[in-house]
């Protein structure tokens, strides 16, 4: 039994790695088509990711929000709830913690705690709302969470151009948060900050989360409404709670990025983080360890990709295409592998038959 589990996991990992390699190879073709050397492109990418101590610390800067958000997304995905609104939840977390940081007149340490809580709660409620709309009105959560992304983005734009705009600047941004509220830098002037400990804490929690009653309930909901109802679970309640937890992670990531990196609200703070969280969660097969590995791979891909764009003539969109290919190949993987297996199986069966005859 144990052996079989290990073998299955091994096959799963092998398939995933194979698909990532295929995506990178197709990426290489695109690099060639844009009149560049794929070898040079990928080696620039690697040097951009691992070339110096500073670059390696940048990998962890990227890893922190990516991993937290991907783990958050995976909570919902396990329950077959397709929360693709991580971006909006990240933004709402950033906004609410920033409001606390700039305007709440309480001592700094207390303000820090409230800002943290505000981010987590805001992210959670923004996703939880979509969960509630699903249970109450049967509104498809894919569309609602996505629409919430647009709404959160425009809310952010409104705030940084209006009520929250830095009074001493014409730029679309808020004032900086007080020095005492910034997450401490860990190594000299490098951007790596104390948020990484929050990430480790989240990972630790997630490792044990799936063994808790709540984790078990969420998995059961993912097995289908019938299974969950027969097991005596309040499906609707679990759906809303699951979405809240899922969004809280992204809200937390918003807090970490705002208080560790940006120190203010800007346009495009979330970047592509929501999509990346989705891809990482799926690439990691919704499994904590798988997601950690996938998030590390993506940190390399993103940091390396950014430096590839600076150093060579290769368009950054190649990195985006690779991301898209990875997600499609990974979901096609299971069927493709199964087909390959039966095909090989038939081949061997025929050979054995010939042998007998």
């Amino acid at each position, binding site marked *: 039994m144990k052996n079989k589990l290990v073998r299955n996991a091994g096959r799963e990992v092998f398939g995933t790695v194979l698909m990532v390699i295929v995506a990178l190879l197709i990426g290489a073709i695109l690099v060639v088509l844009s009149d560049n050397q794929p070898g040079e492109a990928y080696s620039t990418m690697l040097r951009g990711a691992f070339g110096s101590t500073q670059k390696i610390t940048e990998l962890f800067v990227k890893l922190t929000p990516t991993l937290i958000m991907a783990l958050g997304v995976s909570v919902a995905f396990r329950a077959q709830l397709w929360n693709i609104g991580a971006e909006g939840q990240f933004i709402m977390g950033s906004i609410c913690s920033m409001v606390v940081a700039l305007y709440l007149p309480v001592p700094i340490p207390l303000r820090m705690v409230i800002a943290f809580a505000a981010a987590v709660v805001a992210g959670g409620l923004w996703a939880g709302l979509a969960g509630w709309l699903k249970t109450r009105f049967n509104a498809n959560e894919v569309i609602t969470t996505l629409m919430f992304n647009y709404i959160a983005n425009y809310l952010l734009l409104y705030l940084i151009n*209006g009520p929250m705009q830095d009074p001493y600047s014409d730029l679309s941004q808020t004032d900086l948060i007080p020095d005492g509220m910034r997450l401490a830098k860990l190594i000299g002037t490098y951007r790596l900050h104390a948020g990484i400990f929050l990430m480790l804490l989240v990972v630790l929690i997630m490792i044990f989360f799936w063994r808790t009653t709540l984790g078990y309930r969420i998995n059961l909901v993912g097995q289908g409404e019938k299974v969950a109802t027969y097991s005596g679970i309040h499906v609707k309640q679990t759906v809303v709670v699951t979405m809240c937890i899922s969004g809280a992670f992204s809200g937390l990531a918003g807090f970490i990025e705002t208080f560790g990196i940006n120190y203010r609200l800007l346009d495009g703070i979330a970047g592509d983080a929501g999509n990346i969280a989705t891809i990482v969660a799926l690439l990691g097969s919704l499994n904590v360890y798988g997601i950690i590995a996938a998030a590390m791979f993506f940190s390399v891909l993103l940091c390396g990709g950014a430096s590839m764009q600076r150093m060579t003539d290769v368009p950054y969109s190649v990195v985006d295409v690779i991301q*898209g290919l990875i997600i499609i190949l990974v*979901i096609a993987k299971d069927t493709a592998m199964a087909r390959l297996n039966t095909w090989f199986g038939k081949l061997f069966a025929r050979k054995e038959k010939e042998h007998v005859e």
Partner: protein
Amino acid sequence: MWSEVFSLGFLVSLLAGTIRLATPILMPALGQIYTQRAGILNLGVEGTMLMAAVCGFSVTAATGSLWFGFAVGVLTGALYSVLMAWLSVSLRVNQVIAGIGMNILATGLAAYIYRLIFGIRTLPAKIVPFQSLDFFGLSKIPYVGTVLFNHNILVYIAFALVPITWFILEKTTFGLKIKAVGEHPRAADSKGISVSGIRYAAVIIGGAYAGAGGVFMTIAYLNMFTESVIGGFGYIAVSVVIFARFTPGRAMWGALLFGFASALQVRLQALGSGIPSQLLLMLPYILTVVALIFASKKAEFPSAYTIPYSRMER
């Protein structure tokens, strides 16, 4: 300024804008009626539209022919959706994830194609878009002419597709087969209908319609391509289909409703209403959520909605 809002001029430009902005939602929504009726939820419409927008635009920029660009846009939509059909019908993967994957891939591919063809440039590439028709002077009729007879040809094509789509779905064998594989694929299969064949067709037709909507944005609404040119219209179209309970006529009203929200936003901004533009820009997206809330309970989804069909499984 509020007196201006209630003036006739404002109303006329608002209604004209409504019809124009309903078009890029109406086309993909009509197409998705085929797809969803056949039991497949293609969330990849957004990406399909984006691919069509960039390919159609590029061809028009290269050849100078708007109709050629339009045809390529439609073709691109059909071809790109083959990927969705393969994933959802042949590989039977989760359709939601497949759709999201298609959209992420399209974001990268569209930016890559644009960069490959047009290079890095300070100003975006531009074309001369489809011009408004005037119907032998009918557009000169005060008010009514501006609202109804002063659009480009693609707008009229989109609205003409409403009865055509209805006819195909309700009055032809093909339409009947689509509904059969969406409601009861096993029964359809036992009657000799190729479930996967019909589903492939339904997804590809949906893709072609989405392609038309996507290319409309770059060669008939704007005259250039940007990465955010579709801006959620694909997702809005999917929710319009649910809102319309899978019928072309109601989809038209749904699209007009969203066109109205978009046009209202544009007009109020142009007027300098004092309402911050960012809040106005939220309008269509908020409306989508509200529409979904009101429509989803009542909507009768096809029985085999998002469920892959396999002969071997019961």
